[in-house]
């Protein structure tokens, strides 16, 4: 188990090299985040995921884990929204807080996740005020500002209404 802890620390240090300067500042309080902290990570599909590159889109940033029951309940809905609203300027990004990637890679096809997923670490967690309970979901506006934060299992009907209201490109009548 000590080995796991050491691996987590090493992974965190390695990943920290690609982070924005904001990460070096005092960790913000999660509830007071105004602008979504930027980050770049390698996605589980091998492609780079840079949050800032989604500026202009509405982003749903979801911290989750394979062992988290409420997370698994929500994810199929997020995947369906990606399909439904993707062309209207909507993007889901998943951050897995699993301790290693193996169970996540196994879960992706079962959950029908087609959006980018990256592995979380202590630095990414700190960047968002310390992720100390799952799920946590941020809705980020087209300007990069945090519109809403959902801790625990969210009201998905309400969340979808909010997303639709924020979409930059409305569906053609």
């Amino acid at each position, binding site marked *: *188990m000590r080995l*796991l*802890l050491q691996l*987590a620390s090493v992974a965190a240090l390695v990943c920290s090299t690609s982070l924005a300067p904001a990460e070096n500042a005092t960790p913000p309080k999660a509830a007071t985040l105004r602008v979504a902290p930027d980050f770049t990570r390698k996605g589980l599909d091998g492609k780079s995921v840079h949050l800032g590159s989604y500026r202009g889109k509405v982003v749903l940033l979801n911290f989750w884990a394979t062992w*988290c*029951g409420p997370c698994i309940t929500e994810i199929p809905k997020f995947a369906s929204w990606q399909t439904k609203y993707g062309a209207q300027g909507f993007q889901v990004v998943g951050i897995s807080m699993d*301790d290693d990637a193996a169970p996540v890679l196994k879960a992706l096809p079962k959950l029908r996740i087609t959006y980018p997923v990256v592995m979380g*670490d202590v630095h990414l967690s700190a960047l968002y005020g310390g992720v100390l309970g799952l799920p946590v979901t941020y809705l980020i506006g087209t300007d990069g500002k945090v519109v809403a934060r959902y*801790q625990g299992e969210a009201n998905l009907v309400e969340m979808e209404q909010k997303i639709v209201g924020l979409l930059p490109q409305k569906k053609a009548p």
Partner: protein
Amino acid sequence: MKLNRLSVLVLLGAIIALLPLRSVAQQEHVPASSIPQASLIQPADLSAALQSSAPKPLILHVGSVLMFATAHIPGSEYVGPGGKQIGVDALKRRVASLPKDTAIVLYCGCCPWGRCPNIAPAYNLLHDAGFTNLKVLYLADNFGTDWVDKGYPVTKGN
């Protein structure tokens, strides 16, 4: 009769469709609500106990290593996720040489109490092993909301 058959088929279809999701989350979820109330300790009470001069219990974290590294109770030890075999084995090893009356507090706080996959299996393991002075920290929502945000003592790292 036809309607009944159709209903059964629809029900079976729904069950089959949901099976993969269940297997992702947990093989068998043991709910935290199965832990007796008398075995729970409230955050305020544990925090007060930690700040008193009384002997401290052994505090074991049975959740995610990433969350432990992000923040944990000072003096607590990381064991492993109680809902996974790796955590179960680590917990068995950790308590193997301890007297059965050792004061132990278990905590996780990864998820809302009723959905935590780790805490009840860890409690059941120690309870069934005969530990008599066993408490579980009651974290209704999660460790962040019910401990860190309340201003109780926290430390970071491993």
